[in-house]
């Protein structure tokens, strides 16, 4: 049986220390937080900046990484130095490959990279969709994606057309800090199940492994805040004594 000592966590930027301590409490295996942050390594290397900028999506049909221009490398550097959220969307699979090349080749798994970047994957409907996570050899969790990727109610989008601020104010589709942290922890659980079973998700809408599409589904998961009986059983098996 597969066993793990640590969950290896890389962050692109410094993250709130209380998020790390929250995750340590909620995740069933110890977290080994890698230092320094990836941003500090990326900034020093033009080839890294180039690989990162290449992951940008500039149109809805883009099928290949960009061949970035010098100014796009400078922009990436600036965003990292100033700890700003880039106003771009990055192709999640290309970004995962990049992160994988950044961390050592013999990387102990499971490995998670926490990033602020917006990520997207190409859907079966022939267009890109924002994602909050991508599971793979290196799992990416997008903190901005948690806020932005889940679909909101129709009312929210109607209001947003008229007044984005008002839409945000009146909509219930917002997460509190606690709910946000809880969601990150749930995505860590999904990453762990992906590592053990190859499937991060559960079809049970009340299980915290449910692949939520709507905000209301996320809210429901947060309210229930537990694994389904089947995954509870698996968790006991995988994480016994941890």
């Amino acid at each position, binding site marked *: 049986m597969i066993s793990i000592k640590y969950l290896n966590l890389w962050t692109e930027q410094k993250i709130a220390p209380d998020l790390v301590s929250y995750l340590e409490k909620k995740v069933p295996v110890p977290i080994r937080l890698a230092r320094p942050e990836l941003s500090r390594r990326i900034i020093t290397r033009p080839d890294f900046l180039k690989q990162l900028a290449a992951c940008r999506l*500039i*149109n809805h049909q883009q099928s290949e990484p960009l*061949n970035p*221009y*010098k*100014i796009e490398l400078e*922009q990436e550097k600036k965003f990292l130095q100033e700890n700003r959220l880039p106003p771009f969307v990055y192709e999640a699979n290309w970004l995962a490959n990049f992160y994988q090349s950044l961390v050592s080749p013999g990387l102990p798994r499971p490995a998670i990279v926490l990033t602020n970047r917006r990520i997207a994957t190409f859907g079966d409907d022939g267009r890109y969709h924002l994602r909050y996570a991508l599971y793979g050899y290196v799992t990416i969790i997008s903190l901005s994606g948690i806020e932005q990727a889940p679909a909101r109610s129709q009312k929210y989008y109607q209001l947003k057309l008229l007044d984005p601020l008002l839409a945000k104010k009146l909509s219930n589709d917002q997460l509190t800090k606690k709910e946000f942290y809880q969601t990150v922890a749930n995505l860590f659980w999904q990453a762990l199940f992906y590592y053990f079973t190859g499937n991060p998700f559960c079809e049970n809408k009340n299980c915290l492994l449910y692949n939520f599409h709507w905000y209301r589904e996320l809210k429901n998961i947060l309210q229930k805040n537990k694994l389904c009986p089947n995954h509870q059983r698996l968790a006991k098996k995988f994480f016994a004594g941890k």
Partner: protein
Amino acid sequence: MVRKKIFSSVGEKEVTRAITETFLKQFSSFSESEVIIVGAGPSGLMAGRDLAASGHKVLIIERNNYLGGGFWIGGYLMNKVTVRSPGEKILKELGVPYQEYVKGLLVADGPHACSKLIAAACDAGVKFANLSIFDDIILRENNRVAGVVINWTPVSAMPREITCVDPIGLEARVVLDATGHDACVVRKLEARGLIKTRGFGAMWVEESEDAVVEYTSEVHPGLVVSGMAVSTVFGLPRMGPTFGSMLLSGRRAAEVISRILKKR
């Protein structure tokens, strides 16, 4: 009856000599410039004006007889040009009268704005080769752009069978592509596999104007892009009939070029 002469006694030969000698002297001098700008639209003129004002030797190539590109006309053949804030700073600087149509959107007379900009460029010391069409680029070691190849525009308009007219080359330390959506200079690099343009996107004024200014930069050693050529190179949305970013992109291009000239 003997009519009293108003004008001095100068004949045809002196007029011809005055044109040819002064033109050739200037043209010869500008066979080598610090900066060649291709395209005398608003971004090219603005860049030229700022560069010349800071002491650089600047030549602008323009395929038409007239200068100013689309800046004479605001859009749809109507000669009111719009500029979004903070573009009014440049209008003020150029002495162009304007009115605020709604908060943050200024309107000026196209002919007034365009002629003031041309005059400002001339006053700063910019020289022009109008009716001259960009034909190709000059490349040096490591494919650095080192000048442009030009010909008379009328030559390109004549049937090829009767116009075997070789173009000529002008050297420069930096070339600015200010040719609008056509991005003619960049396209020549692309034809040689040295760069890949992304093509401009659909119209989106609010997104495009900021991006055009932000992405104004050196895209290949020795080659800077400004104005709508920036959209074509970087795949940015087009902006429609508004000119604030053309002026600010020109200004940004001048800053970028000044830095390049300092380094080299």
